């Protein structure tokens, strides 16, 4: 049987005629989960989320219930909920759908989460470019307040929570939670060092803060609606719920596919759901979970042991779509934004494209990242420009090795991982590009830099 979707987050927004207004949401069972939540003790709501096994959908995949447990409840300072709707990882466009087509689903998740952590104020940090998305959210908040789902005395419980939509300024690093917090405080989005700045202890205004991804909060809504134990039955042990795969690049049907965790493979996603490669082309590689996850090459074998001790030996097409299986192949599920490259692509151009992105987006605080990202961008661009030397290939790797692990935030890894993963896998092709371009010849395929 070909792979199937199991829409949970996208179930409503895909219905013909479904609209963003609150009446439409209420007709589809909206805010029933919030009703349940406020009739439950906050700590029991946290327990439900822990039982559900839900992992964050912002890229790192950290268990949501555990994150909430880290919240410092003894400080006496107010707690804040911050929603990361910055969606800045290239290849990722899943949260956009929720914001533009089903904002109340996320708002309900926000209200439930705010109740669970007893936050009186929540901020939605939304990408600055989502101008109309911010308006849609603001309108939805007004509607929810008018019906008693947000604002003061939510559903007669005596509990109140205000939600503010805050637009960013088009900066990738503000998707990093501590950079986001700095930005929300009205400063440059320079990430903070951990320790001591773990948001759950010293977050927004140095108060305990939970930062959750937009989709994670939509998932929380479903955890409460069906109960943690039921939710945990979706997917597989260790990775529950659905994953939204945002496929882009060179594939017949790019798009968003919501699949139960672990219940399909990359092969099924790319061939059954996305229709395979473009006519006359063959797949070459994928970047599985947003541009900073490590690249996988078609034709590679992935061998190792699963957590239960059983051995696996997979081709790329065989890799199951769950966080642990993908991690076992040396990369990450990340945000599920899969970028597909086919045999028309000159790989040094693809790398150069991403290097240029990270060089543009480095905040400049840490020298290894600021200098390293620029060097990587210049060296790879020099190769594409015909001025490459064979020693540039090991140099790329050498530079990347000096960035990863040496920076305040994970932007350093985001800079390094595409290079560290691609150089060993495409070294021969890079060398060929260097020689060909030195002769003044170019490659076919799309221009990427």
């Amino acid at each position, binding site marked *: 049987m070909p792979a199937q979707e199991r829409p949970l987050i996208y179930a409503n927004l895909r219905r013909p005629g479904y609209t963003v207004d609150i009446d439409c949401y209420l007709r589809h069972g909206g805010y029933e989960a919030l009703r349940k939540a406020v009739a439950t003790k906050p700590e029991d709501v946290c327990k439900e989320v822990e039982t559900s096994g839900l992992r964050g959908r912002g890229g790192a995949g950290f268990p949501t219930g555990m994150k909430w447990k880290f919240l410092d409840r003894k400080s006496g300072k107010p707690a804040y909920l911050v929603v990361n709707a910055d969606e800045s990882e290239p290849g990722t466009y899943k949260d956009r759908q929720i914001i533009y*087509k089903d904002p109340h689903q996320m708002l309900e998740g926000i209200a439930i989460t705010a109740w669970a952590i007893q936050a009186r104020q929540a901020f939605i940090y939304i990408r600055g*470019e989502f101008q109309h998305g911010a308006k849609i959210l603001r309108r939805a908040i007004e509607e929810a307040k008018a019906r008693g789902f947000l604002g003061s005395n939510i559903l007669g419980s005596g509990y109140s929570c205000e939600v503010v939509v805050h637009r960013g300024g088009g900066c990738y690093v503000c998707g990093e939670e501590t950079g986001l917090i700095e930005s929300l405080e009205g*400063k440059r989005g320079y990430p903070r060092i951990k320790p001591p700045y773990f948001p759950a202890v010293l977050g927004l205004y140095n108060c305990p803060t939970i930062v959750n991804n937009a989709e994670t909060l939509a998932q929380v809504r479903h955890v409460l609606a069906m109960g943690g134990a039921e939710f945990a039955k979706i997917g597989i042990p260790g990775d529950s719920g659905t994953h939204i795969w945002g496929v*882009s690049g060179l594939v017949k049907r790019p798009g968003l596919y919501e699949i139960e965790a672990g219940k399909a493979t990359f092969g099924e996603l790319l061939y059954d759901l996305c229709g395979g490669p473009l006519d006359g082309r063959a797949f070459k590689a994928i970047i599985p979970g947003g541009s900073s996850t490590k690249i996988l090459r078609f034709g590679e074998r992935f061998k190792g042991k699963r957590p239960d001790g059983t051995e696996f030996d997979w081709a790329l097409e065989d890799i199951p779509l769950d966080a642990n299986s993908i991690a076992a192949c040396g990369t990450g599920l990340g945000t599920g934004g899969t970028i597909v490259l086919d045999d028309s692509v000159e790989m040094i151009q693809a790398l150069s494209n991403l290097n240029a*992105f990270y060089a543009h987006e480095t905040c400049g605080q840490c020298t290894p990242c600021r200098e390293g990202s620029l060097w990587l961008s210049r060296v790879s661009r020099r190769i594409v420009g015909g001025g490459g030397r064979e020693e540039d290939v090991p140099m790329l790797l050498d530079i990347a090795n000096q960035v990863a692990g040496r920076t305040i935030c994970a932007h350093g890894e985001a800079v390094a991982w595409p290079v560290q993963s691609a150089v060993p896998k495409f070294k021969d092709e890079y060398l060929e590009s260097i020689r060909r371009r030195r002769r003044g010849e170019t490659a076919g395929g*799309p221009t*990427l*830099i």
Partner: protein
Amino acid sequence: MSLKPETLAAADAIVAQYPQARSATLPLLHLVQEDRGHIAPEDEAWVAAKVGVTPMQVREVVTFYPMFRLAPVGRRHIRVCRTLSCALRGSYALMAELEKALGCARGETSADGNFTLEFVECIADCGCGPVVQVDHALHENVAPDQAAAFASRIRESLADPGYGKGEPRPGTPEWNG
């Protein structure tokens, strides 16, 4: 030129949304830029006074975030995504065509002041590449071979008195913007 009365009037309510006034820096800068089209030195001073910091502390925010600009742009601001997913679907070829059709090099404003054409980094619509943001609207799947027609529509919009004023309908570029 001073800011519009409605801009000035909106500021205090924005500041009041935050436990600390400085948090209103980015929202106020967006407000100013939507009014004036860019951020002038006197705007930085105005924002600084509203949120209780020095003008230099506002300047360092303005220069950090790619969306804020210190100089005006053309009447139509055209931003083509150049990051990998869109590039794979032809955004570089599209850019080359738009340069020809609009008579404007990337990163520049046309001599008549009508168009500013830029490459930008990922705007999170990767499955519909290449995507192009024109002012408030997001256009999806703009193939390079449609560039001339796309440019003509942008040019025609210069004569449209209702441009940017309507209430967006779901699924339109204005809605997605």
